[in-house]
């Protein structure tokens, strides 16, 4: 008995120690980044119009393409949750490909899709547009690498909705679309919101794929890299700190929004 209690205590201590090391691993670099940035440098960066423009572009494009992708991703997530069909595992594999691809390779793939040699690029060219180096290219690259997070989170959400509720709704006279819109989607909403937030977050932090399709106009991750490459760590650091603060504020706001809606 005594041995068991001792064993429990040892296990708890080892687990606490290992967990503490991991948390320190996450916190230490961020803390170092914040501590080595002076307030005057940070205020100077806030006033920098290039930084302001890049943050606006990053947040705006990521939000827009997250919403656009949602329009296509939610039906796919619903099908993946509800239907059994031949080749389903293959489709799930396709959905997950962007997660396992090196992001530079994803960028090359997207570049091939929108460059002037592609059908889409030629079509844009006829209309006098060059997709490469445009906010559109940035959005496509962001969406390409981040959309699996939305699809998978929404699929898990739809799977958790009892199929019985959908059957009850059908037997009460609802069309399949009404069942989706008024029963399945509201019940899967927490997971769908989590998926949207994850996709938005992953999109705005994307560097590898974005830098290949559009160095200019600069998103904030590209700007941080550019400042580091051209002027060194001291110039890149305040931009990184500012971007991290904004990311944290945006996510806190989104979480609070989700929680308030849930309470209502």
């Amino acid at each position: 008995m005594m041995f068991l209690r001792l064993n429990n205590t040892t296990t708890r201590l080892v687990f606490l120690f290992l967990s503490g090391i991991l948390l320190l691993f996450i916190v230490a670099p961020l803390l170092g980044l914040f501590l080595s940035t002076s307030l005057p440098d940070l205020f100077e960066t806030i006033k920098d119009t290039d930084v302001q423009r890049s943050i606006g572009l990053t947040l705006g494009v990521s939000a827009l393409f997250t919403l656009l992708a949602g329009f296509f991703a939610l039906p796919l997530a619903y099908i993946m949750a509800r239907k059994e069909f031949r080749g389903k595992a293959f489709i799930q594999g396709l959905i997950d490909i962007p997660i396992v691809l090196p992001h530079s390779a994803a960028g090359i793939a997207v570049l091939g899709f929108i460059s002037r040699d592609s059908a889409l690029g030629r079509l844009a060219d006829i209309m006098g547009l060059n997709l490469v180096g445009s906010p559109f290219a940035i959005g496509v690259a962001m969406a390409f690498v981040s959309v699996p997070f939305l699809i998978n989170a929404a699929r898990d959400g739809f799977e958790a909705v009892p199929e019985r509720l959908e059957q009850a709704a059908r037997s009460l006279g609802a069309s399949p679309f009404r069942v989706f819109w008024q029963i399945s989607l509201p019940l899967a909403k927490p997971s769908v919101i989590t998926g949207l937030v994850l996709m938005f977050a992953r999109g705005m932090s994307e560097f590898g794929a974005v830098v290949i399709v559009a160095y200019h106009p600069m998103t904030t991750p590209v700007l941080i890299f550019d400042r580091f490459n051209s002027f060194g760590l001291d110039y890149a650091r305040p931009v990184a700190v500012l971007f991290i603060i904004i990311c944290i504020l945006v996510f806190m706001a989104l979480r609070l929004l989700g929680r308030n809606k849930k309470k209502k």
Partner: protein
Amino acid sequence: MLLCRDLEYKVGTFHLEGFSLVLQQGDYCALLGPSGSGKTIILELIAGLRTLKKGSIIIDGKDCTLLPPQRRPVGILFQDYALFPHMSVFENIAWPLEIRKMKKNEIKRTVVSFASDLDIDRHMDRMPGSLSGGEKQRVALARTLVVHPKVLLLDEPLSALDAPLRDQSVLLLKKVSQTGITILHVTHDQAEVRFLANRQITIGS
């Protein structure tokens, strides 16, 4: 009123073959059989929630075999009641009427009338999660009956209730059956339908 002719259906190792049933208006029929005998599947076939391999289903003289569930004049009360957890009691009962584009004041009047008949009018603002088993059942019944289905399908409606509630429910179902609706009641317990059913069908495992 309800005519099922030579129903055939197969899923996994379960195989239903040659199932036929004729019910007249106002019949209260108990469908008995052991667990796994396919009683619930038969209800789901009649409700259109599963697709028949062969056979036909005629309700009130209309061939419903190929109709989707939302176009069949059938109401189904599920064993777990399947109340929508994100809607209040009022919203649950009103929902089928909203689908049918009924006017708001008419919806309110109808819901209040059904809720009063089923003694749930004081729970209108509550969410399903806070209701007892018996209350849930009455809300689900109100939601099903509010659109006046020709046939009411009951899937083990008493199995989740404890003894005192069960007796109340039996009385309630008796009251519903007296409105002239045709009822098919699935159960594995013959005793629970003794005072309700005027017909009885037993299917094997």
